[in-house]
């Protein structure tokens, strides 16, 4: 009797936490997203305004800009991270002291605080005394005196760079795990038949890594959609609004301008995008698993 209910009891503490810390706030901000609430005017929520906040979002250029910025950021950061991680994993799966050393230090960028990464890249790209700004200028004369973070495109580039530097190691570990689970026989047979390295990678290894690569790409997309920390500490959304990601824009609306109704609506738009992707992700995981057990 007691044993029959045990599986449920074990779930209770975790579910209380999850319900209280995520489901409740979600419901709260969903309701708030249909109200007007300018916190500089009123301490409590004002009247319901239907879909006004959402309709306003659809026509506000600052919001549309942040959508576009986020889109560019996600595409660049996901593509670079996944490709680099796959290449690194192929290189690092061999044995050797230098391989092991590189694998060990790879965990460091991932453990580093993203806010701190933003700060340190800001320092290194300072045009007056930044070591990377100066160093690149010395190697490539055409890059001398480039105002890195003051240029919209370069600032976006550096923002992507910090994120790729931070996430590639984690994704490399995922790839290494995936590579380790691929049976070695086909690869060895192909090698005996004299197939080139390139053919082995593209013809044998990558097709078998399809599942892992997909999982990585979706996971990275979800993390990239939330991009916030380095925007604050590296670019401050600038120059202008050129690196204002969606999460940063919502933060500004809510905590600089205190328009809680509008901020909630924007937050729900972001949630909807992420829910859409993550539902797809979980579905894919379940079907991959079925394929694996079949």
């Amino acid at each position: 009797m007691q044993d029959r209910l045990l599986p449920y009891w074990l779930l209770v503490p975790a579910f209380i936490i999850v319900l209280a810390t995520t489901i409740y706030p979600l419901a709260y901000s969903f309701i708030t997203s249909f109200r007007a609430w300018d916190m500089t005017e009123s301490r409590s929520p004002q009247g319901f305004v239907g879909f006004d906040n959402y309709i306003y979002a659809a026509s506000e250029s600052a919001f549309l800009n942040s959508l576009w910025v986020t889109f560019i950021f996600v595409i660049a950061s996901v593509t670079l991270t996944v490709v680099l991680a796959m290449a690194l994993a192929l290189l690092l799966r061999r044995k050797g002291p230098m391989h092991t050393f590189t694998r060990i230090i790879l965990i460091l960028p991932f453990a580093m605080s993203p806010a701190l990464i933003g700060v340190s890249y800001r320092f290194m790209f300072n045009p007056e005394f930044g070591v990377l700004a100066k160093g690149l200028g010395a190697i490539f004369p055409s890059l001398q005196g480039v105002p890195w973070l003051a240029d919209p495109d370069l600032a976006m580039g550096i923002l992507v760079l910090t994120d790729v530097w931070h996430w590639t190691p984690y994704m490399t570990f995922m790839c290494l795990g995936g590579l380790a689970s691929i049976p070695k026989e086909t690869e060895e047979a192909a090698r005996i038949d004299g197939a080139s390295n390139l053919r082995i990678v593209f013809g044998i290894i990558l097709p078998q890594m399809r599942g892992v690569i997909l999982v990585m790409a979706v996971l990275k997309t979800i993390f990239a959609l939330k991009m916030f920390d380095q925007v604050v500490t590296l670019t401050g959304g600038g120059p202008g609004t050129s690196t204002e990601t969606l999460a940063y824009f919502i933060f500004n609306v809510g905590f600089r301008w205190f328009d809680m109704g509008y901020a909630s609506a924007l937050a729900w738009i972001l949630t909807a995008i992420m829910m859409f992707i993550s539902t797809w992700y979980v579905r894919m995981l379940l079907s991959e698993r079925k394929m694996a057990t079949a």
Partner: protein
Amino acid sequence: MKRNLAYLGERALLVLISIVVLFPIAWMFLTAFKQPRDAYSLSLIFEPTLQNFITVFSDPWNLGSMVMNSVIVATVTVAIAVPCAALAAYSFSRFRVKGRKFLFFLILSTQFIPAVVIVLPFFLMFRQLGMLDTRLALIIVNLAIVTPFVIWMIKGFIDAIPTDSEEAAMIDGASRLRVIKDIVLPMAAPGIMTSSIFCFILTWNEFLFALILSRRDAVTLPVGLVSFRTERGDLWELMSAAGVMITVPIFIMALFIQKHFTRGMTAGAVK
């Protein structure tokens, strides 16, 4: 000859990767030990000093209280999240609970809710309750991010443990709780340890919540970094010293779990 060349190329590539990984970290560490005048030059030869560390720990920066906040918030978050998550992970791993797929899906999906959505209502609620700028507030919101993740991770580790010895003990009349305590927990210990450290790192580095919910008393280390941006400009040598303080404890922990890390990641993500 050709093989030698490929071998050399591979070595060179590995060296290059190591430089890309280590350089930003090394530069920060160097800057932390430079005097202000050296911090703005690129020279590698300088008279090292501990002055920056002394400065950041004294008035007005008071990094000590931020270290305290970070340690308390991260430790308490781990202490609450990991035991609850371990029990749930065991249930998900071993029982065919009704609606299990839906519940697991629910937990997984919450992991993908953007933090900015969670913090908005909590900001309003904490303001109402006068809990803004307290460590408790930070712990509560951090649980939101960390708990689903840890359930997922520990489940991966428990899935990998064979059920034979559990079944044998149950046949001998041991209760399920006893089995969990005496058999499963010891076997899952490395996995739970790895998940705990992982969870600690996530909370330690958390920025958005702390930025919004703390002003003065509960400020954690990552948010403290922003305070070195003054009217006089960015104080890089002090930022670097603070950066070293944020990084060192986490690096030690990360290197400690490095071995299990690869396994944990794939278990969580692919299985």
